[in-house]
């Protein structure tokens, strides 16, 4: 009875709110195929005109960094303050810099 449902993959839904913005993750849903996923995503995540474009991606196709590795994984960025403009000293009164 419900086995047809179990087979339906999970899709992640990304919505572009309006032109000029990038797609952002809105949530997820189950659907048998990409076409149905798009239709369901429209009904579920854009009932009030929240989007002008939708992406649906099978959840299994997303590769994520593991939270257990997060410290070493992102560590290289933590000790490089010279990548930020605020790292540099500029004399008072110098303009357009």
């Amino acid at each position: 009875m419900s086995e047809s449902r179990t087979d339906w993959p999970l899709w992640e839904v990304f919505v572009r709110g309006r032109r000029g913005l990038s797609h952002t993750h809105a949530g997820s849903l189950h659907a048998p195929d990409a076409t149905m996923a798009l239709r369901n995503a429209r009904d579920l995540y854009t009932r009030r005109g929240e989007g002008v474009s939708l992406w649906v991606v099978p959840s299994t196709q997303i590769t994520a960094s593991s939270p257990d590795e997060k410290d070493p994984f992102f560590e290289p960025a933590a000790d490089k303050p010279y990548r930020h403009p605020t790292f540099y000293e500029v004399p008072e009164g110098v303009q357009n810099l």
Partner: protein
Amino acid sequence: MTTTLPERDAAHDDARAAAFDAAVAAEERIEPRDWMPDAYRATLVRQIAQHAHSEIIGMQPEANWISRAPSLRRKAILLAKVQDEAGHGLYLYSAAETLGASRDELLDKLHTGRQKYSSIFNYPTLTWADVGAIGWLVDGAAITNQVPLCRCSYGPYARAMVRVCKEESFHQRQGYELLLALTRGTPAQRAMAQDAVDRWWWPSLMMFGPPDDESAHSAQSMAWKIKRHSNDELRQRFVDICVPQAESLGLTLPDPELRWNAERGHYDHGPIDWAEFKQVLQGNGPCNEQRIGQRRRAHEEGAWVRAAASAYADKHTAHQGAERNGAAA
């Protein structure tokens, strides 16, 4: 989602538990792939599932009136509202799934009574005014409960609640407006509005759950920052909001002990009939069997639609595969 755990050793576990506690204490959000205590996960699954089921079962009392709405305007509003409830259920099922629960398992638990839904939906919608009373009082109580959940420590639940709360405010306002239209109508319409409020007031107060000293899960949920305010605190907030709103409608709330307490700065209300609450929770409310029966029937009768969609998807995928192979050759 299952993750393979590294070899368990006590120090490693302690470190992860400390990291979890620190994140909760620092008001950071816990995300699906983070380590979390088993009991935290189980509590969230139970609460989010119950919440999702409530949204889905909550479609029924109002759907009862879609075909009998008094105008096209009211019918369109009611259709949109009931569709929103379905959407809310789906956001919440998705949130529960990030914790490892499966959609089928959740539905199965609802259908077999192993997971509950809010007892409020076991009351019948006897007149059109009930649609207004549900919007104003039931959705009003739900909003009071849900706004603090937008800051819940579990990220996916909090995000689902932000979306739900945004949509929920239209629900409450349409209910209030519906009652206002009735109170400005004929004496019979006025009486119908008052009757609906009389019947829905007390069950709405019960929606906040048992009093603080009898609430089984409250203390731990507050410590985990799943829950931000106690049941009684939220109930009081709701009563304080409703009294002036009822006055504006020119309707009374069915509680002779309801009065302003200047010392506390809140309205006092009379005792809640917790025996009734327990009866409804145990399945002896006016509509328990009808609600679950209808849900099961809808699921069973929808089986062919799910089967057809799956069959179409399989055929389409096979066809596309053949085309691709053809092109490559």
